[in-house]
């Protein structure tokens, strides 16, 4: 009749209210940390999966192999060029190909100067459409660039709303880029990544002229025909480019990224971050468990006489053991329950803060049932396990000695 022991345990926990609360703190901080972090991690993972689905799982990116950190194309060992675009177009299974150029530039607005990246929109209509079809390019104010626009640009969200310059940039503002005046015709919606929100879009031929660039391309986007295997087509592109460049396998100066790879690297990062933080939370939970053990030892000592009374009135060792295990298990479970509730609150708060700060719904806390049930089961088990030694000690007390204890 375990329920009898549980109800006795509840009474005993209530009887020592303050100490019971303090004991539970250790558990619930740890559990709250684990629950909120896993929920956010799960949510982030789901959001990234979704993001990739909308960006298009039918596109591969080709760029020069980076030799350091920096925006794509700025610190590259090799080169990709217009010729590569033509080459990739010929690979079977490829639908459309577009190249983009990204250049660092000095931008002056109302006498204030900043270094920012300029990103090109392809000049050929079908290439431009491939780039613009992805969800990330939405115009908030004004309009998108037309192929005929010569001295016009579209700016990222932060120019207008994040005080990138002292005064906000608006439609019609004039920017000086590399000593040439440009008019802002559109402002993009918030994308959520700092690079894109601080970028300036410019037609590709204008950009090439401005920077006196040859036919270098920063990144090539290739769309794969419907029904084709993306990985196989990516491999074909790799082979074609390698052959064209006369490079050996594994020694290429370019790289091809498929959404799958991005997804995997994101997942790896999320997993590593989660593992680290959960490791820290685990220490808190361990300390919480030791706290329960300490409380239970104190409780056994304080209640030595009670144990004697119970034994005198017929309690078997196993019944005393069960009573104390129920008590420590319940302490763990109660701590875990508070932890789960707290974790959900933290997860939801972070979600809300992220929504306001980033303006994107990327970070959504997600609470699968197994996370909640698992956390509760774990904290009960931890509590009971922490109580094993104190409970054994209690159950082994001799009734005569225990009764004499004051």
């Amino acid at each position, binding site marked *: *009749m375990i329920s*009898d022991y549980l109800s*006795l345990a509840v*009474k*005993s926990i*209530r*009887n020592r209210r303050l100490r019971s609360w303090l004991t539970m703190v250790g558990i619930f901080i740890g559990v709250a940390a684990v629950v909120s972090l896993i929920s956010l991690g799960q949510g982030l993972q789901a959001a990234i999966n979704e993001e990739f689905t909308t960006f298009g799982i039918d596109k591969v990116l080709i760029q020069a192999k980076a030799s350091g950190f920096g925006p794509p194309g700025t610190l590259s060992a090799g080169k990709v060029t217009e010729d590569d675009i033509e080459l990739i177009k010929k690979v079977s299974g490829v639908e459309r190909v577009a190249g983009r150029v990204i250049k660092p530039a000095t931008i002056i607005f109302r006498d204030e100067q900043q270094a920012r990246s300029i990103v090109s929109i392809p000049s050929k209509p079908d290439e431009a459409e491939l780039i613009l079809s992805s969800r990330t390019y939405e115009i908030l104010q004004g309009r998108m660039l037309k192929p005929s626009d010569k001295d016009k640009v579209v700016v990222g969200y932060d120019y207008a709303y994040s005080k990138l310059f002292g005064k906000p940039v608006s439609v019609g503002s004039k920017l000086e880029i590399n000593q040439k005046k440009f008019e802002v015709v559109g402002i993009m919606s918030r994308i959520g990544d700092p690079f894109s929100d601080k970028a300036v879009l410019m037609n590709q031929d204008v950009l090439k002229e401005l920077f006196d660039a040859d036919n270098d391309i920063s990144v090539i986007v290739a769309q794969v025909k419907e029904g084709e295997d993306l990985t196989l087509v990516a491999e074909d592109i790799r082979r074609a480019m390698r052959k064209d460049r006369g490079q050996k396998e594994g020694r290429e100066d370019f790289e091809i990224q498929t959404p799958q790879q991005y997804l995997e690297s994101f997942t790896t990062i999320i997993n590593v971050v989660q593992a680290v933080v959960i490791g820290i939370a685990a220490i808190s939970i361990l300390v919480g468990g030791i706290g329960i053990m300490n409380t239970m030892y104190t409780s056994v000592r304080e209640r030595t*006489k*009670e144990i004697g*009374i*119970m*034994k*005198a*009135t*017929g*309690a*078997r*060792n*196993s*019944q005393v053991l069960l009573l104390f295990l129920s008590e420590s298990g319940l302490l763990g479970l109660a701590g875990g329950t508070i932890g789960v509730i707290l974790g959900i609150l933290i997860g939801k708060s972070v979600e809300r803060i992220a929504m306001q700060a980033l303006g994107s719904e990327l970070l959504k806390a997600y609470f699968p049932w197994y996370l909640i049930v698992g956390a509760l089961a774990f904290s009960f088990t931890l509590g009971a396990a922490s109580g094993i030694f104190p409970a054994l000690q209690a159950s082994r007390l*001799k*009734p*005569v000695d225990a*009764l004499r204890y004051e």
Partner: protein
Amino acid sequence: MKRSIIRLENVWKSYVMGKVRVDALRGINLDVSLGEFIAIRGPSGSGKSTAMNLIGCLDYPTSGTVLLDGNDISRLRESELAQVRGRKIGFVFQQFNLIPSLSAVENVELPMVFQNVPKKKRIKRAMDLLSSVGLGERLNHRPRELSGGQQQRVSIARALANDPEVILADEPTGNLDSATGKSIMEMLISLNKEGKTIILVTHDENLARMAGRVEYIMDGKNYRRLK
């Protein structure tokens, strides 16, 4: 001759304290029959408490035999002994020894919990017992909300929970004023009339006189004294 419920045969109990061996009991013999009211008397240090522990089957003898209802307790393991003790002996202590976190009803229920009595039956019996000791109005009070006399009555109700043959009362009036003490003694006497075996451990000659038989313990041995 009536059935023997507790029988001590040449019981010795020794403790080792450091390097010294102390013999608290040196060959006690005692036979308590079912339905008897017996008092165990003795000054402090006489081995009276040790004898009580053995009579109450709370401890094992160093040598000799303790028979509880004909069974040698040395052959029972601790948990088995606890179960048997819970059914056959009810304790009333000088300090009342109620569990402070439990109400009167819950305290009376406790011995029945350990005998796995179903909850409904348990609560009913606990309430009946408390009513019979005059505490029907105080069922849900905690021990600290009750007077000494009331607490002792709760503990008598608890002692009766599993309907044991024997009530072992260790200085049951020691912490009570004389009027309250008297009412507790009357309660024990009436229980004896209802057929319970009462073993009263006391140092008080006047209380001991109320029993049908007095055993006097001194220096770890007993001397029978007639009333």
